[in-house]
């Protein structure tokens, strides 16, 4: 705010400049999805389903893309007691396949198509991709621990029984015992898929969300 006319800001501070740029950016970022037919061909959804999905998507994100903040907000509405920001961050990265920082409708549909209409192989692939935070093809114990902590965070503080400090670590150990066949401390995609296919529970639960849409 300029109170005295002589104090004209010759060099506007970088903060102000950035915010102006940000505003422009926000205003100009608009994304229109591919044509309906194209999406229908790419994904396994019918036209009607795509319409319903897009309406919901566009309602929440009128600009056509979801950035990470909005993603976290939306996801945290489903888990009010806990802190789901970390898990939402991992989930965002799993959906944002081209890593441009925004999930467009196509990314969204691709992800959902795999999760709801894909084969078990595809689903397991997707899950592996989610756990593999740095996308190097191996799940390390640290990565798994992060994921586990994020999942437990979503539960919040008020649980029964009370969450123990080392519960995530225990859980990771159990997971690695089950998955890591050659005990080399990392889980590869093949180990993962093989172990999951052997497990009855996992197989069954993969089919759980078939009819979500």
């Amino acid at each position: 705010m300029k109170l005295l006319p002589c104090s004209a800001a010759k060099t506007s501070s970088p903060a102000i400049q950035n915010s102006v740029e940000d505003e422009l950016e926000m205003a100009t970022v608009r994304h229109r999805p591919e044509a309906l037919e194209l999406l229908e061909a790419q994904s396994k959804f019918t036209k009607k389903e795509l319409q319903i999905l897009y309406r919901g998507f566009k309602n929440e994100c009128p600009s056509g893309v979801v950035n990470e903040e909005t993603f976290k907000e939306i996801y945290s509405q489903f888990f009010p007691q806990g802190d789901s920001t970390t898990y939402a961050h991992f989930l965002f990265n799993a959906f944002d396949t081209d890593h441009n920082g925004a999930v467009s409708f196509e990314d969204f549909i691709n992800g959902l198509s795999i999760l709801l209409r894909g084969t078990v192989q595809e689903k397991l692939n997707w899950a592996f991709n989610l756990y593999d935070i740095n996308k190097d093809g191996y799940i390390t114990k640290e990565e798994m621990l992060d994921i586990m902590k994020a999942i437990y965070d979503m539960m919040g503080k008020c649980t029964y029984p009370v969450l123990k400090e080392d519960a995530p670590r225990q859980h990771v150990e159990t997971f690695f015992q089950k998955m890591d066949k050659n005990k080399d401390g990392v889980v590869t995609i093949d180990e993962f898929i093989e172990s999951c296919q052997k497990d009855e529970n996992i197989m069954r639960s993969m089919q759980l969300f078939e009819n979500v849409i």
Partner: protein
Amino acid sequence: MAAGVAAWLPFARAAAIGWMPVANCPMPLAPADKNKRQDELIILNVSGRRFQTWRTTLERYPDTLLGSTEKEFFFNEDTKEYFFDRDPEVFRCVLNFYRTGKLHYPRYECISAYDDELAFYGILPEIIGDCCYEEYKDRKRENAERLMDDNDSENNQESMPSLSFRQTMWRAFENPHTSTLALVFYYVTGFFIAVSVITNVVETVPCGTVPGSKELPCGERYSVAFFCLDTACVMIFTVEYLLRLFAPPSRYRFIRSVMSIIDVVAIMPYYIGLVMTDNEDVSGAFVTLRVFRVFRIFKFSRHSQGLRILGYTLKSCASELGFLLFSLTMAIIIFATVMFYAEKGSSASKFTSIPASFWYTIVTMTTLGYGDMVPKTIAGKIFGSICSLSGVLVIALPVPVIVSNFSRIYHQNQRADKRRAQKKARLARIRVAKTGSSNAYLHSKRNGLLNEALELTGTPEDEHMGKTTSLIESQHHHLLHCLEKTTGLSYLVDDPLLSVRTSTIKNHEFIDEQMFEQNCMESSMQNYPSTRSPSLSSHPGLTTTCCSRRSKKTTHLPNSNLPATRLRSMQELSTIHIQGSEQPSLTTRPPPTTSK
């Protein structure tokens, strides 16, 4: 959950697949979607304007009317749409709430109409978005204040018959317009306050010379007269204060109130003066005490609403006044210091110390400029001018806030007064409309009885007797007739033609007001309890003023032959002469035995 978030639930559920490989135990079964139907457009017809939306949009909020099965009650099979007989303008806002998750409050909408609509659709007003919530709350508060005002004045005007003497006195003190005695008291006290104040003023005016001594003020020349006046005033004030002390419902609170303190301060000096002897030591203190007599002028605030508003404004602007005072003090100290040091060098400077400079600073900042202290050095003059400029600024800033507060409160008061004045006329008009409906019943009775008479006598009468009433009216009248039969209380019809047919009336029926009066008079029941008088309109005025009016009426108005079908207002009815002598017999009939 917010609106669109429900649309993301499928996504969240799908993403849950990410937990599956990690889970150690089997997952619970998913709920089956029994009523899985395709999303369909539903048509909402609101008073003719058609809105269309997806069914799932409405189902986002299942605890509202539109989101639950409650809307099925409004489903119209023929047109396959949901019909609501409500305001389409407000419905627009309601539907937008479903669509966007935000409820807005349109400014042009009346607050109570909007509230009604929200209540109908089962939406809590608390979820109005932040953008509109403040406006909504402000309007609601205004409306509530207005209603409270109305209710208060209504309660005050209702005649409560069982007020104790103490309560009547308190009401008389608080509101002098309730009775003539209160008004007299009000004016008398006002007069004496004025007399007392003028006396105090005139006392000090020099009144000519007495030969042999210097000029005296009037107070000393006519000391006896002034003393008598003072005594009289103080006596009146004392009596008034004691009465006020006796009357209020909460004496402790009254004693603590400002007005009572002013009363006490006004009369104390006199009594203290009486008690103290003519002692040289204390006479100085006594003179000081006489200054407090001037507080009598504050007693006028009971008589002037403007003064009260001013006082209330000052109280409510306490923070602004405090800020003004604080900033002024700061500025005074700063400038006084500066001026003192600036003028220190000049000879014969009046700025002998910083406190001495305070006077100069105050006089300059308020732009008074007496000129008794003037800076002589150049630096002093420069700082002096800065001082006066800043004084103007500092004082001008909080004053508009105080002014606008005063204006707001004053206008609010004006509005309240205006509303109260209009209310009487409004209520009178409402009363007329209400009694119109009761008269409708009487007229239908007359018509009914006349029809009966026609049937019995067989003589054709004018067509206007057969006035057709709507279905609702006739049902209403039938209902009232049933009540008659049940209770045995009655209205009597005052038609001259019907006086012949009184023998056909077997039971007590609704009695018209002046018939009732007539009966009161003729059966000379002086103390007829007002509660027994039945009336269709539940207005208390009808029952309480009945017999009081009776006592006032001494002459009968000339006979007026009026046709039965002419609609009359209650005021008109009261001037119509009561017919015949056969009517009293109706009320003496034994009450009917109701057979079950």
